[in-house]
């Protein structure tokens, strides 16, 4: 069993999110939110600016004209989309080449995060979940804990594979080997990075959304759970363990989601997911 202190130390050692993206999320949430403050904050970060312009011109965002300034990007895409691109850039930047413990490359891991971001946005839109402002971002960042947990699974890989063969779920296996799981570690990481509360909660309970304590966030975390489960069902960035999971039974009831709707969402999300996957190379350049 690994001690809590050791995990905390490991979290400290992660390449952190830049202050810029955290500041952007705070600006976006202000009631008197100012576009010029938003633009200025990005401009102070030259590497983010350069990457954002590359991303804004990718086919994922689908703007036919050349975007050469952040101001124009904000005008054409809106501040929220620019923020989402900033977070995507941050995530892409900090991933190791391979999450060995989970048997998955960073590109596949990225594809999964992209899939959850896009599928959860589509579910939130269809179900008119108004608290869904940050849902794309929460989808991108729901598995932060895996960045740390992977290393420990790598050190216990035989046991990890054996327990999965014994039909334990991924979360049960992590708990058994490590005394914690990637949800709890993800929560600690997102807290440390001062990410918004809904993103922290999505990290904490995306395998068991009915445990979310804040009633205002149950739908939000529930949608991330459904999107995560659907993405893995379809094999979009699935690692060695993620199919060994359970659907939280209350969630499909809450949201009233049935199989035909899942299939429709899958069909309508796929192109965007594949395009968002492609920008990974742009970010890693």
């Amino acid at each position: 069993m690994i001690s809590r202190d050791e995990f905390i130390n490991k979290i400290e050692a992660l390449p952190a999110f830049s202050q810029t993206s955290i500041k952007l999320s705070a600006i976006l949430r202000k009631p008197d939110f100012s576009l010029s403050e938003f633009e200025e904050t990005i401009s102070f970060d030259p590497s983010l600016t350069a990457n954002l312009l590359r991303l804004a011109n990718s086919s994922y965002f689908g703007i036919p004209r050349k975007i050469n300034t952040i101001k124009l990007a904000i005008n054409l895409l809106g501040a929220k989309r620019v923020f989402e691109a900033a977070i995507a850039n941050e995530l892409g930047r900090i991933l190791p080449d391979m999450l060995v413990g989970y048997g998955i490359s960073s590109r596949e891991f990225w594809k999964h995060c992209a899939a959850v971001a896009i599928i959860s946005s589509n579910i939130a839109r269809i179900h008119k979940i108004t608290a869904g402002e940050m849902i794309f971002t929460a989808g991108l960042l729901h598995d932060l804990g895996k960045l740390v947990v992977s290393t420990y699974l790598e050190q216990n890989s035989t046991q990890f594979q054996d327990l999965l063969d014994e039909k334990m779920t991924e979360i049960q296996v992590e708990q058994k080997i490590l005394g914690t799981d990637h949800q709890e570690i993800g929560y600690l990481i997102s807290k440390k990075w001062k990410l918004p509360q809904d993103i922290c909660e999505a990290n904490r309970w995306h395998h068991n959304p009915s445990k979310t304590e804040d009633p205002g966030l149950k739908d939000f975390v529930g949608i991330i759970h459904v999107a995560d489960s659907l993405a893995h069902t379809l094999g979009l960035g699935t690692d060695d363990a993620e199919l060994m999971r359970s659907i939280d039974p209350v969630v499909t009831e809450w949201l009233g989601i049935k199989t035909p709707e899942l299939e429709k969402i899958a069909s309508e999300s796929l192109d965007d997911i594949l395009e968002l996957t492609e920008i990974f190379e742009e970010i890693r350049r």
Partner: protein
Amino acid sequence: MNNITVQIADYKVSNNPDDVLITYALGSCIAVILYDPVNKVGGMIHFMLPLSKTSPEKADQKPAMFADTGVPLLFEDFYKAGGSKVNMTIRVAGGGKLYEDNGTFDIGKRNYTILRKMLWKNGYAILSEDVGDAKSRTAKLELATGRVTIKSRGSEIEL
């Protein structure tokens, strides 16, 4: 050897013995693998969903997304590339599921049911298959030999 990747919602056909058709991460999606050992023609589809009525618009743009619009195209192109119905073998892989999926998420089972129905209606039989369970699979067809392998979590089987 020349690896050709079959993306999700896509299909590929080849009559070049140097080619290897390969598709990754079949969760609930299904790969149908055709091979003619005499003419050395092979084909593979990686479809995602059972029925195109889910989204007729997407079915127009990407027919291989759905079993009912994609699988007929695979057969058509397989014959065009010189494959013959008499020699053809059909193998199937994928249709996996979550460990406990509450029924709602069992798209793999629906994919498999529809596929079987389509093949049966047209008088085709499946030679061998590796379907179901909480498994993500990689499927590979070597054109030169007709060898089909399925890989899942490190272990590989021949189909």
